């Protein structure tokens, strides 16, 4: 016991006003900058320069557009995750679903290029549909296992990531390798009309539009439709859902399909907007970053879009730091990790009120 008794009381909050919630998030992001500075200093790096490099990414139009397009695969995957998480479906497999989306989008391009299937005008639309269905079905499998057999979804979704990544590896090292590509493990380059730059001049514009449209759809779906209502009830209390006459299997399948499908479209953005072809390990963990983004945004679809741009910016910043300051990528990953920890801490403060009394 201390001489002067300091009492720390932790109480559950009954209501959380939006302003308080935003203030807590903002404060802790600020705190993560402080902690990150300390870490950078420990690494012997000038923290002010590092942080200002990170911040400058968001100030210049060119790098901001870069941040947007890098953020969109994350954003679409996170929008899907926001559906899944509100259904209490812990999908850790957005990464694999991104790869399945890349696979389907590239498959459509190859069908067109090699066999002349699908007319040019319909190609991009077909790619969107194919990547959506492919990512969706990939997520429906663990969804089915959960709803029908009660298998926890975390491990299946996580393990299917490796399956998808290796499957794409197999394709680009094997049958899908560009015949004129000097045996590099790369697919052929996509034609212009299969690339997002082909529309509106810059892939970022189309990417952002897609993300905003999807955010609106997700918002309406969750708040205004019966299926969204059903998904939320299932996420809250499975017993209550059964009692309310909700078909658990149907709801889980639809929810997991939509969640995986959106990540699939994220995969399309990677191949069609960022790289322009399929290559191995095309996603550096966007699907995992999407989990952070979904939580940072509090599963709110409108906040997911800016949050994913923020994380896209961090990726761009990582490259800038590497180039300008000769720092390892790990430095930016450390920064990301600190932000994630702060989000978890913020969750605690959002749920509980802490008061200190003397």
């Amino acid at each position, binding site marked *: 016991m201390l001489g002067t008794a300091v009492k720390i009381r932790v109480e559950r909050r009954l209501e959380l006003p939006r302003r308080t919630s935003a203030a807590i998030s903002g404060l802790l992001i600020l705190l993560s900058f402080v902690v990150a500075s300390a870490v950078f200093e420990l690494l012997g790096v000038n923290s002010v320069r590092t942080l200002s490099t990170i911040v400058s990414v968001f100030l210049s139009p060119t790098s901001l557009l870069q941040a947007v397009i890098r953020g969109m695969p994350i954003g679409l995957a996170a929008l899907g995750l926001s559906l899944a998480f509100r259904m209490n479906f812990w999908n850790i497999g957005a990464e694999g679903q991104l790869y399945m989306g890349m696979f389907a989008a590239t498959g459509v391009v190859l069908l067109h290029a090699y066999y002349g299937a699908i007319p040019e005008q319909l190609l991009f639309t077909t790619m969107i549909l194919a990547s959506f269905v492919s990512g969706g079905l990939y997520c429906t499998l663990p969804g089915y296992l959960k709803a029908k057999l009660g298998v926890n979804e975390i491990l299946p979704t996580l393990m299917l990531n490796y399956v998808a990544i290796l499957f794409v590896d197999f394709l680009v090292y094997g049958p899908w390798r560009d015949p004129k590509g000097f045996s590099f493990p790369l697919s052929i380059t996509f034609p212009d009309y299969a690339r997002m730059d082909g529309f509106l001049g810059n892939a970022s514009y189309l990417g952002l539009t897609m993300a905003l449209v999807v955010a609106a759809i997700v918002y309406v779906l969750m708040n205004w439709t019966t299926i969204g209502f059903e998904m*939320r*009830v299932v996420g*809250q*209390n499975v017993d*209550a*859902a059964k*009692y*309310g*006459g909700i*078909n658990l299997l149907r709801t889980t399948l639809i929810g997991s399909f939509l969640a995986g499908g959106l990540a699939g479209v994220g995969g399309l953005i990677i191949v069609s907007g960022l790289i322009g072809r399929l290559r191995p390990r095309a996603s550096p963990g966007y699907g995992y970053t999407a989990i952070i983004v979904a939580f940072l945004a509090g599963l709110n679809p409108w906040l997911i879009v800016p949050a994913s741009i923020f994380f896209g910016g961090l990726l761009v910043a990582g490259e800038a730091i590497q180039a300008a300051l000769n720092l390892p990528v790990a430095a930016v990953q450390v920064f990301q990790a600190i932000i994630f920890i702060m989000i978890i801490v913020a969750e605690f403060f959002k749920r509980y009120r802490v008061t200190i009394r003397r």
Partner: protein
Amino acid sequence: MWVESPQTLVEMRGIVKRFPGVLANDSASFTLLRGEVHALLGENGAGKTTLMNILYGLYRPDAGQIYVKGRLVQIRSPRDAISLGIGMVHQQFRLIPTHTVAENIIVGSREIGFTLRYDAINEELSKLIKFYGWSIRPDSRVWQLSAGEKQQVELLKALYRKADILILDEPTSVLTPQETTVLFQTLRRMASQGLGVVLISHKLDEVMGVSDRVTVMRRGRTVATKPTKETNPEELAYLMIGRQIGVVEPRKTTLSPHPILETHGLKVLDDKGLLAVKGLSIKLHGGEILGVAGVSGNGQQELMEALVGLRRVEEGKILIGGIDVTNKPPSAFIDAGVAYIPPETLKYTASGMTVAENLILKSYRRSKFSHRFLINWRNVYEEAERLVKTFNIVAPSLKTRAGNLSGGNIQRLVLARELALQDDIKIVIAAYPTKGLDVASTEFIQRKLAETRDRGAGVLLVSEDLEELAMLSDRLIVMYKGGIVGELSRAEFDLETVGLMMTGVKRAEATA
């Protein structure tokens, strides 16, 4: 006026405990002697568990004194209680399944110091286990144990901490009959060792079988304490239920010519996979309240869940309005006009969602609230506003999370959802609808059920509250061990007879 007496372990005087909307303990008094098994008997919601939770430090009383071994004490937490030698075994076990018996027992123990000496601990535990003739081992993992064995671990935990005052809250509710026999032997043995044992129960046969003295509680008050030898089940039932029987409201509408709900030879399993409903056949007509009396755990829960589509029917049939709905999904039952007021309302509430959202949990598919795929929130809120008013649901707003409401208000919310939102309900399955509620809420809910009946619906009212059953039911069946012991018409109601039938005595014998 405390008289120093080493024989008296606990004396609780004038204990008052108020919860929002409920007076749980109304100047209750209780004495526990060394070497006795003392039964605390009462209906659900009579305040037995609250009184003992106060003794164990889980609640602070609003008024009253507690003396333990002659000393006036303030019990602020279970930790205080444990250091006074009080141990409690709750209905839900508080054990860590992946840990061993020994590890579970030393969790939270203060004396063990920094390093663990398992040899010494195991030796002491083995001694205790041997003394009580149990078969558990200190190094078994808890998840491998049966319910009865887990209970022994809980008892062992208290004994290891040298408790001499032991409280068991409805200990037999999770046990098989054989395990119950073993438990009762243990309790007798503990008493012979000079411990004081409190047995919370609402089962008369248990109380008669194992206790030395019995204290009866009703609506928060301790109404009598008697040596078990000097009383009998009839007197105890009488004390438990009280003298007054409510005003009888006769049926106003005529019965529907055909039953709206029928079951034929219904067989249903419980969670453990044992047969809980053993070939039950009932007929419910529109315009009547059919009471189902019985001590809980005799298959009522499983019967009700089967009747609303939440539990699989193994054998037999359920007909609604003559149409076979056996093993259809819950939505089919909802569409057929079945309302269900479940025993644990919180279990069927989406507590993180709003009051309005919870109100439409069952009716959101109706054209009033949704068109194709879109929910019409304007209609939802209008309707919710109306319901909150008619059912007196006290909530800061319609957007308040349901989980933040008090128990009584959640009960009203469920009632509103079930009874008012679907204007074409034909059948109401109501389980203990007034359990734990204060007088005003109870009356309100009983009136609503009668109203629904008068509108032509059939009500199946499952309750342990005989007073309530006598007041509301037009007809009464008594369930015991998954079957029907007998049926009584309204004219034949007799609390003593029903009370005896609840213990499995056939009607002819009960009235003889």
